């Protein structure tokens, strides 16, 4: 279909590249001139760019560029913009009646999203990213329906605001109240609070009593002996029936949920050495030292935690 090979055409002054693959040769056509111009334009653009924007590396940083562009400043601007955007709903959240927040669709939606990211930033270190806590270390699981200090929205709010047993906030929950170390060999602050010194054997008996009331397999004889020791020493906090006392943060011993563990070994360790978990105060502020979280943020976290499945 071709009159003659194009390379032999006298009209075209283009030669071939000299390459030949299976007899197929390649014409050495020139580039279009406009392409060359785009190449020069790119170089010009690159020079202009390095003048306008941060480009040349120096010892500590780079040339700033005449436009003063900075992604860090952009982020700060963005954060400021979002803060301004969120300011009205934040102040509404801080002013609203605590129990009414979840009924307000807009407030609830904002609180859930804000609470989720605040939780991931501030709470997940102890309570876990999924809020399941760490049992062995006594970081409570926030998903279940057992609460040391109450799972209603205002109780959660109070706990987050003041924390537990911390040394800064005078309103913190349970300051000076903890599970004493009952072992007769224990010393220190946790031991001083114990109303009695129990021998290893006695502690074993109490452990079996606790195993029994929590529905686990227990030695009946030891449990009976333990019941008397329990009545003498434990009812003040954990109650006669062992269901605990939220005012004192005393756990319910009859349910299936354990802060540190409900097996014999862990219960023995708890009785012997005592327990006293600490949670920071997120709302405590003094002169020159602002609160870690604003009231609106604390409320957002409270709403989020309340929505995780255990809320009362």
């Amino acid at each position, binding site marked *: *279909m*071709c*009159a003659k090979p*194009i390379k032999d*055409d006298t009209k075209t*002054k*283009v*030669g*071939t*590249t*000299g390459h030949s693959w299976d007899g197929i040769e390649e014409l*050495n056509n*020139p*580039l*279009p*001139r*406009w*392409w*060359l111009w785009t190449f020069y334009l790119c170089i010009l653009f690159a020079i202009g760019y390095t003048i306008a924007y941060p480009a040349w590396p120096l010892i500590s940083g780079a040339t700033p560029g005449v436009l003063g562009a900075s992604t860090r400043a952009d982020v700060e601007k963005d954060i400021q913009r979002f803060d301004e955007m969120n300011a009205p709903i934040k102040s509404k959240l801080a002013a609203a009646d605590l129990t009414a927040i*979840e009924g307000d669709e807009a407030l609830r939606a904002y609180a859930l999203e804000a609470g989720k990211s605040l939780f991931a930033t501030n709470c997940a270190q102890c309570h*876990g*990213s*999924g809020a*399941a806590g760490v049992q062995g270390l006594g970081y409570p*699981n926030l*998903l*279940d*329906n*057992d609460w040391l200090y109450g799972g209603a929205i205002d109780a959660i709010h109070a706990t987050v605001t003041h924390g537990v047993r911390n040394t800064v906030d005078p309103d913190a929950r349970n300051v000076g109240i903890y599970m004493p170390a009952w072992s007769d060999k224990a010393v220190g602050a946790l031991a001083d609070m114990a109303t009695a010194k129990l021998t290893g054997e006695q502690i074993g008996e109490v452990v079996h009593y606790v195993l029994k009331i929590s*529905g686990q397999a227990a030695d009946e004889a030891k449990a009976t002996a333990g019941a008397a020791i329990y009545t003498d020493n434990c009812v003040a906090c954990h109650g006669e029936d062992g269901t605990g006392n939220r005012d004192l943060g005393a756990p*319910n011993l009859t*349910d*299936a*949920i354990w802060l540190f563990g409900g097996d014999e070994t862990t219960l023995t360790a708890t009785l012997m050495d005592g327990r006293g978990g600490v949670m920071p105060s997120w709302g405590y502020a003094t002169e020159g030292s602002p609160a870690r979280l604003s009231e609106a943020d604390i409320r957002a976290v409270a709403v989020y935690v309340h*929505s995780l*499945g255990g809320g009362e």
Partner: protein
Amino acid sequence: MSDTQDPPQLYAAREPIFPRRVKGTFRTLKWWLMGFMLGIYYITPWIRWDRGPQMPDQAVLLDISSRRFFFFMIEIWPNEFYFVAGLLIMAGLGLFLFTSAAGRVWCGYACPQTVWTDLFILVERWVEGDRNARIRLHRQPWNWEKLIKNGIKWWLWLLIGLATGGAWVFYFTDAPTLFWGLLDGTASPVAYITMAVLTFTTFFFGGFAREQICIYACPWPRIQAAMMDEDTITIGYRSWRGEPRGKQSVETSGDCIDCMACVNVCPMGIDIRDGQQLACITCGLCIDACNGIMDKIGKPHGLVGYLALTDEPLEKAGKPDKPIWKHILRPRTIVYSVLWLGIGIGLVVALFVRANLDASLTPVRNPPYVILSNGDIRNTFDMRLRNKHGEDRWFTVSATAGGDVTLALEGTDELRVLVKASDTLVQRLYVTAKAGTVAAKAHHLPLRIWITDVEGPDIPKAERIYKDTIFNGAEED
């Protein structure tokens, strides 16, 4: 490279091309196609389609801000993007099919670059005259005539570009609203910027870059070479009939009288008699030009025409061509057709079986389960409920599982939740197994969650879908 050749140039200025006006079958076909395709492009955003209150009434709408794609009765949500992916794959396979069957028909007839360039050349001819007049104008120094003619031409091109960019933005928002918004300056800056960019690119690509886009910028012509083979029908010059070129009065001359008609009409500025070449978009105008000349000198049509490479030896031997269907019907075109049809049928079926409610169920596996105070085991799921109806609907949930489980929804005591019309709701679902039951102790329990949009007095038919998942029990040590 032989020594007699000049040293090669590294770059060269573009040779301007002044295609001559031509009449004939393919030119007529191209006029009709141009009108048809430009019509589709400009008119489509103005077609209305009633979808009920609260819904847009534009037949074809890419609503990016609310993440919906409307195409007449079809509404695509972002999670159904596979429909769009499927359409794109079909478009690709369609191109493969057409290219393997009939060469660069897309390039020659349907490509926007070709269609708009054709339109721009038409405008150019209206303003400046046909080929010879345009060459004269091009060569003469700048004077009032040249300035005025070029000025008029550029303004017309800009207007076409503006209309092109203008029509484009109408696909993304309600066209009439945007039209008045554009006029009184209240439209979004994005609309103006998009229009400006498209106006400029249309003006530049159709007016100045033209064939350079096909030769240097577009990847598709490069890929097409792999789609074509000896049976692909394409445009060629029957050299065995035409050569040697020369005056018809000379006894030994072939049919080609070297009148250059085929070269003068070519929008790509090539000589089809040089054979298959990279720049040829197979627009068919050289066929029209040559057939016109053949009529004048009393020779049969088809010195330049559609033929396949396999026809060449047959014709040289004086035999008739292979029939067209034998060229087209060959394994690769059949494979392309089957794939194309398969995906098309799959998409249509998927379109008709899809429900108006849709849900995804994400198990919350951090932690896998929660022990409740009475020893019950609870799993949590995040449901994403999508109501594709035009009105609010209640969604209820139920479960079938390999053991007894009870359901609960976060934030409500009921097992139903209201999802607004054409909206998505994220709802937390709790599945609880009683302490000590099979389900509570199972390592993995199959769980099927049923979601029903509740039947109402004015809702004739409730739809029900299910999602299969796993219930995690507290496996005993």
